[in-house]
């Protein structure tokens, strides 16, 4: 069964009572919320995602609900909890869905240490994954959205999950988080794509989520072998420059962008070294998305433009 099989009223009812056990890649999260804005956003973004039965095991039990007291009436806030604990301060209620998304990321990076996790977007074509590690503000989600709408399969716009045993990327296709000018840029490029309403004045600026492509969700169980590591950096006004990076420098940058490298210690080092061994590494500086996409379509070893 998928989430889209529920009517909106069924979804709201389930979310407010037993919760909905949402499968995203390797993770099952039981989500509860009484907030219509959360139900509406889940219906929009997760319609193709599988849901498990109410008594199935869930990796995380999360809740996004309004805060109590006077705050219910005056500048209403929402709070995210996981297993009853609130890792973040409450936020204005219009940020409830972005907060759920940030919370889901937090759950995965904080608890899923059976995997090595990178702060990186990742897309796939022809069985090879293109990993885009970068700190916030580097344009990786914009690039990821552009690539996805140019035919690449979305594995994740934020978390690259590596299975240390197989060295394969485990897909986690969820909504792509776009910020500020990127929202309009991608909206123009993908006029048929579904976006959530823009939430302004978050601590990341204006934020909107882009629904993951149906095909990417349907193929979420298909892992991909890393083929390229490209470190993107968006910089206003610069020409596009895709420059090879040595494997040693690539490994250093991958480690810099790993969430839990030190949890894995020497085995994590071996995992990332082996991953880099099978990849070609590049640095990409860009300001023009079309130019950047065209350079990435011509990556060595990429036989055809997707």
């Amino acid at each position, binding site marked *: 069964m998928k989430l889209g099989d529920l009517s909106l009223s069924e979804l709201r009812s389930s979310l407010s009572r037993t919760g909905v056990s949402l499968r995203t890649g390797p993770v099952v999260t039981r989500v509860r919320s009484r907030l219509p804005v959360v139900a509406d956003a889940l219906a929009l973004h997760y319609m193709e995602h599988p849901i498990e039965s109410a008594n199935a095991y869930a990796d995380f039990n999360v809740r996004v609900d309004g805060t109590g007291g006077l705050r219910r009436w005056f500048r209403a806030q929402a709070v995210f909890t996981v297993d009853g604990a609130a890792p973040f301060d409450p936020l204005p209620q219009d940020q409830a869905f972005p907060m759920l998304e940030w919370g889901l990321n937090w759950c995965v990076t904080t608890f899923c240490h059976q995997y090595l996790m990178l702060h990186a977007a990742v897309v796939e074509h022809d069985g090879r994954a293109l990993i885009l590690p970068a700190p916030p503000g580097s344009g990786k989600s914009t690039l990821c959205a552009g690539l996805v709408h140019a035919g690449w399969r979305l594995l994740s716009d934020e978390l690259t999950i590596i299975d240390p045993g197989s060295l394969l990327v485990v897909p986690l296709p969820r909504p792509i988080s776009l910020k500020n000018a990127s929202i309009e840029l991608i909206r123009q490029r993908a006029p048929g794509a579904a976006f959530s309403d823009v939430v302004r004045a978050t601590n990341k600026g204006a934020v909107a989520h882009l629904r993951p492509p149906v095909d990417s969700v349907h193929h979420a169980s298909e892992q991909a072998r890393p083929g390229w590591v490209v470190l993107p950096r968006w910089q206003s006004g610069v020409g596009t420059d895709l420059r090879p990076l*040595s*494997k*040693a*420098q690539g*490994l*250093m940058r991958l*480690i810099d962008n790993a969430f839990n490298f*030190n949890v894995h*210690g*020497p085995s994590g*080092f*071996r995992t990332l*070294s082996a991953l*880099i*061994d099978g990849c070609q590494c590049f640095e990409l500086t860009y300001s023009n998305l079309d130019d950047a996409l065209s350079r990435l379509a011509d990556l060595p070893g990429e036989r055809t433009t997707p």
Partner: protein
Amino acid sequence: MARSGTWRLTAASSSFAWAIWDGEAVVYDERLALTHYIGPAALAVLQALEGQSGATCDELIERLRSAGHSIEPNAEDLQGLRDLLDGLNRCGLAEFRAS
């Protein structure tokens, strides 16, 4: 003024995890949970220290020249070598023993 003594690999360096490609390396020191990038010149120096008794800077220059590296026994290259060795010392890879 230059100190008198010899450089060698630290005992701890053998427990580091290494990844080497095309004359560059990355080493991981599990004890301190630190990762270091080793550029081509530093890697050549480490290889010159490997499996041999300690060496003075002059002896190291000879070993590097024998290995085909274009380092010269002049003041500028000697200072460059000392700076490199100091960097390797800070990474816990090489140590100086005064004579």
